[in-house]
């Protein structure tokens, strides 16, 4: 017997007054995989995430997390999930460590202090642990936000546009954190409107358009939907991003491909 998928969505519908946000959404997410919900702004990505995280009720259809129904077994669902919303949901007045300790208390863990210290280490925030979050940079804030979502090791994590508004350096930090999550066996559902983000992170990608999933597959499958690639020879110039990262001094983990050349003394 195979384990049921970590996330199971069937015929999800949701309208806000006159606007039909979702018109029948179906998809499954396998355990321990990263699933990207890709779509333009207003496609209904956040609505899906809110329904799955029990913040919103669907008008029709069902959604299950770990076999628990989001509508009728919301408490059990909340035990197995964690939500990282569109804006870093951190408490600015508290320190980074206090934020983590608070969440650990609310998840009723036995040793909140240790949980907090471990996560601070894992997300390279130990030095900033005692500082108020108001003094953090955007990337640090997002890292803390994700660290807070990991308190209590929930099996399923929702990341709603985790890198929107971040500079490339911070974005790379977040990507690294997401990869580590999946490596630890956590199921990740992320929404994004950055194609590159889906390409970099996701095992499966679904494209949401006007409230419906129009395509769902692996990157390879998606690429095969278009005519086969032509071979062209193009001079590979560094992208502005490569230049930026070279100057700022943080590597994009080598994935972005283009050779990083020094830009000074040209």
């Amino acid at each position, binding site marked *: 017997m195979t384990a049921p998928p970590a996330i199971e969505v069937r015929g999800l519908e949701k309208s806000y007054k006159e606007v039909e946000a979702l018109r029948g959404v179906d998809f499954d997410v396998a355990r321990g995989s990263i699933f990207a919900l890709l779509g333009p702004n207003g496609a209904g990505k956040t609505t899906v995430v809110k329904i799955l995280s029990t*913040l919103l009720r669907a008008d029709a259809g069902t959604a299950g997390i770990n076999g628990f129904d989001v509508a009728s077994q919301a408490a059990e669902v909340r035990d197995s999930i964690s939500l990282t919303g569109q804006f870093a949901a951190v408490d600015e007045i508290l320190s980074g460590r206090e934020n983590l300790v608070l969440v650990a208390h*609310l998840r009723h863990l036995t040793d909140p202090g240790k949980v907090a210290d471990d996560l601070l280490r894992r997300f390279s925030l130990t030095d900033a642990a005692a500082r108020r979050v108001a003094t953090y940079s955007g990337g640090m804030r997002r890292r803390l936000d994700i660290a807070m979502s990991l308190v209590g090791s929930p099996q399923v994590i929702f990341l709603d546009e985790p890198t929107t508004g971040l500079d490339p350096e911070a974005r790379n930090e977040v990507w690294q954190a997401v990869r580590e999550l999946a490596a630890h066996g956590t199921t990740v559902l992320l929404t994004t409107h950055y194609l590159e983000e889906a390409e970099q992170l996701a095992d499966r990608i679904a494209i949401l358009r006007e409230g419906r999933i129009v395509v769902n597959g692996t990157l390879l499958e998606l690429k095969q939907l278009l005519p086969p690639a032509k071979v062209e020879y193009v001079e590979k110039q560094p992208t502005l991003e490569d230049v930026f990262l070279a100057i700022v001094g943080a590597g994009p983990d080598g994935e972005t491909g283009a050779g990083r050349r020094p830009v000074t003394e040209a």
Partner: protein
Amino acid sequence: MTRHFFGDTAFLTGRSLRHITRSVDTIITTTIMPIAFMLLFVYVFGGAIRSGSPSYVTYLLPGILLITVASGISYTAFRLFLDLQSGIFERFQSMPIARSSVLWAHVLTSLVANLISLVVVVLVALLIGFRSGAGVLAWLAVAGILIVFTLALTWLAMIPGLTAKSVDGASAFSYPLIFLPFVSSAFVPTSTMPGPVRAFAEYQPVTSIVNTIRDLYTGRPAGTDIWIALAWCVGLLVVAYGFAMLIYRRRSG
């Protein structure tokens, strides 16, 4: 999940109390206006007002205390609004915690913050000559009425806190509450007012609450006013609680 209600509420209250202790300016801002009113009325207008009381500050203090709470709860709405805006509210809502504890934490924080402000205002009143000969029991009754009043206005503040679209909207609702004491027995005896104004002043809630507090700490029998005052406070508390919870449930799906 209710088995965690008290623990969750305690942790969340601890969190928002730290907001107050780390930005003491909110306490200062909420007490500045009532204290300014108090000084203005005692030292500028007070000489011209015949309150029938030997010390005007003693006559005035109950109204000032109500104004203190009315200005304090605008911060209650503001803090709740900020939590909703920042997304931390949604984080709490998606966690396995007792749902209503998120709201109760704000209510308890508001109660503590307002009690601190009230103590500050009473201390200033003592400095400028307020004296009370009343016993411990009467003061406990005063504290009890102020607590019920604060809870009622706090639950009222939850409504704009949950529904406001902007920061200004979240706190503006308190302005009429701040001015209500002016058309009551708080600053001048109602007998000096013209007919319709006097009628309004005598039957609006502030007058009965002000009279009750004044009677209690000057050691006079409070009479029926105390029951009218309590009925207003408890009535408002129940209605505001009902509405706030309804909005909260609808919001959190």
